[in-house]
């Protein structure tokens, strides 16, 4: 057992924190909220220069050959800084999915460009009225000779409007089992008939609605095998849930830190507000939630990183962290008083994103219902 980060990971983390402290002040986060691109290209260039997009890409594709766990260490820091950059979409949703399932030529083509930060990739899963499971994929891709023609809508696709490639989960067979008949197609962001429009959401975090109006994809665009994308998608979603949980842990830690700092300085009734027992217990509860969150998220990432089956760990992590992070933000507001509620304050940047992060790849209730299904079916989680 070793519940510490490795020395390399600790260096990676320290370096990331330093870079982001310098290059990604909260002002950048605030500015990017109004920007249609949804992220900062200069910041992305810096991340790319440091090799972040390719951290978990094998060396033969120009990456650093690190693990998903290594990548998660970065995501904890980008989560902490709320860094407006497509690292999650490109490195987790894009690169790792391709690594899992793509053909060698596709990997040879794409991964080096992704690793170099030259190509952005993302994943389109959830649909109107649908959830986060392979069986929820309804978007039709009609086989037409040597190509698929896609018509329909995907929602909440991170950074779609700036992505070079959108790995799109589509349904290619109707009467198959719930996980069968799903195919992953690599669709260029510039494909004809594809229209990404940023959602207007409370976090202004660059998620898009993507309309497919007769978008055409050749057979060579299939990631993995036709009709057999279900298990790949399931695994991808588990990784996404675990990585999102780690990102939220970083954000929650920043929230606790800024709260404790404020409470030490802010004086009311002749003493620091942090000396009041009710406020102290708010902070203790935040600390308890944070401690559990980090361990649950790390465990899920680590198991996935090891290539182990980790459905239960991923759901446990996302279920716990989604609620815990929102509880932490709520208590932080209560500790900050009115000032934390203003647009000028950094706290609310975290709070608004926590709500969007909660929903990404399934909220606590969704993951608990997954776990409950397993329990009833006699697997102890």
């Amino acid at each position, binding site marked *: 057992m070793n519940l510490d980060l490795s020395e390399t990971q600790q260096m990676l983390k320290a370096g990331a924190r330093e870079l982001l402290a310098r290059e990604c002040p909260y002002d950048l986060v605030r500015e990017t909220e109004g920007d249609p691109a949804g992220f900062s290209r200069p910041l992305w260039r810096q991340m790319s220069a440091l090799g972040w997009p390719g951290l978990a890409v094998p060396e033969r594709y120009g990456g650093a050959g690190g693990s998903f766990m290594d990548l998660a260490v970065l995501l904890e820091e980008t989560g902490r800084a709320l860094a407006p950059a497509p690292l999650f979409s490109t490195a987790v949703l894009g690169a790792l999915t391709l690594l899992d399932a793509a053909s060698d030529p596709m990997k040879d083509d794409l991964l080096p460009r992704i690793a170099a930060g030259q190509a952005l990739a993302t994943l389109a899963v*959830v649909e*109107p*009225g*649908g*959830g986060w499971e392979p069986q929820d994929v309804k978007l039709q891709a009609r086989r037409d000779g040597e190509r698929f023609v896609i018509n329909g809508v995907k*929602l*909440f696709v991170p950074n779609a409007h700036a992505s070079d490639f959108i790995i799109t989960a589509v349904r290619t067979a109707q009467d198959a089992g719930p996980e069968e008949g799903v195919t992953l197609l690599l669709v260029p962001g510039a494909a004809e008939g594809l229209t990404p429009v940023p*959602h*207007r*959401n*409370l*976090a202004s975090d660059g998620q898009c*609605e993507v309309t497919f109006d007769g978008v055409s994809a050749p057979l060579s665009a299939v990631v993995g095998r036709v009709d057999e994308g279900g298990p790949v998608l399931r695994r991808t979603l588990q990784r996404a849930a675990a990585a999102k949980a780690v990102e939220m842990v970083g954000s929650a830690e920043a929230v606790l830190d800024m709260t404790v700092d404020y409470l030490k300085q802010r*004086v*009311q*009734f*002749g003493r620091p507000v942090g000396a*009041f*027992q*009710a*406020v102290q217990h708010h902070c203790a509860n935040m600390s308890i939630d944070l401690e559990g969150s980090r361990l649950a998220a790390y465990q899920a990432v680590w198991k996935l990183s090891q290539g182990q089956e980790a459905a239960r760990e991923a759901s446990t992590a996302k279920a716990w962290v989604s609620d815990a992070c*929102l509880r932490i933000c*709520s208590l932080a*507001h*209560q500790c900050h*008083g*009115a000032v*934390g*509620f*203003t*647009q*000028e*304050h950094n706290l*609310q940047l975290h*709070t*608004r994103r926590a*709500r*969007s992060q909660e*929903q*990404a790849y399934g*909220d*606590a*209730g969704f993951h608990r*219902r997954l776990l409950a299904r397993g329990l009833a079916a006699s697997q102890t989680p």
Partner: protein
Amino acid sequence: MDFRFSQDEEQFRQDLLAFLGAELPPGWEGLGDDWNLTLATRRKLAERGWLTMHWPKEYGGQEASPLLSLIFNEEMSYHRAPGRDPFGARMLGPTLMIYGSEEQKRRFLPPVARGEAQWCQGYSEPQAGSDLASLSVRAQDRGDHFLVNGSKIWTSLAHRADWMMLLARTDPEAPKHRGISFLLVDMRSPGVETRPIINMAGSHEFNEVFFDDVEVPKVNLVGERDRGWYVAVTLLDFERSGIDHAAASRRLLDDLSAFLRDDESAALIGGARRWMWDLLAERYVEAEVARLIAYRVAWMQTGGLAPNKEASISKVFGTETFQRVADTGLKILGPLGQLTGDDPRAPLHGRFQEAWRHSFANTIAAGTSEVQRNIIAGRGLGLPRG
């Protein structure tokens, strides 16, 4: 014991509902901030005498019972109707009735009753939040006037206000509760500057207000000089009420229930599920309890009692219920819940995410939940001071 309203009270509720049906734009959702509509509706409420219905007749009121005020606030909140006047009608009025001079009452109350004057409340300062008595805005005695310097913060509607109820320090040497005075300040006075504060819901309700050698005539001092703290505390007791939050919670729940019951709208989120109804039922129970607690506060006032612990209970429970309702709605709506009203896919016009963002302010403004719990434990249960 009788949980019904009287016939007169029920009649008033019907009259008010008819008024709202006639005056509010069709399909009114209470979205956005239409100040002209607020002012127009307020004048119409004033014409019917409802704006200040709880005031004495001589100042433009109807001496209505606290239960009628309760119904008024409940329905206005449920219907998200514009036009109420929390500051002039609900705070300044009752305060001047107790502490104001006859001249002050005659001068300041009628415009409020007519819906023509907007007031705001200059209490909080950057360094004086929960610890309000540590405020530092100075008001120096200059013979016939006070000279005011300093700044206030979190001043709701200051940018719309004609007048401010200002707490300022007139004796910096005295113990902190003893050197404060309660002044009425013309917001158009030279030296008053208002700067907006945008909140995390993206709306402009709060302001900072700066005073740079602002002259306030001494006739605008309410109560005794240096005794303004006691005036201020009286006013705070008019501020805590849970009915707004209980009614707003109920409205959100009703909206969401209707959304789920309609197969077409429910399909947008994948259809209604049993766990959604179970969660909603849990919140309905809380909203109902919040309503009853707020009723009890009004009922005590009807009997001439001053609810204290009960008002704090109502405020804490109402605001925390509203937070839980907003949170539950977002969990039920799933990913779409985060969409703001300007996204065409936003269910219920993005109402729930907006309510959730606003809900953080409710457990802080008008006395934090922590301060309210201190009151419940201390003044309410008699536990010793910490």
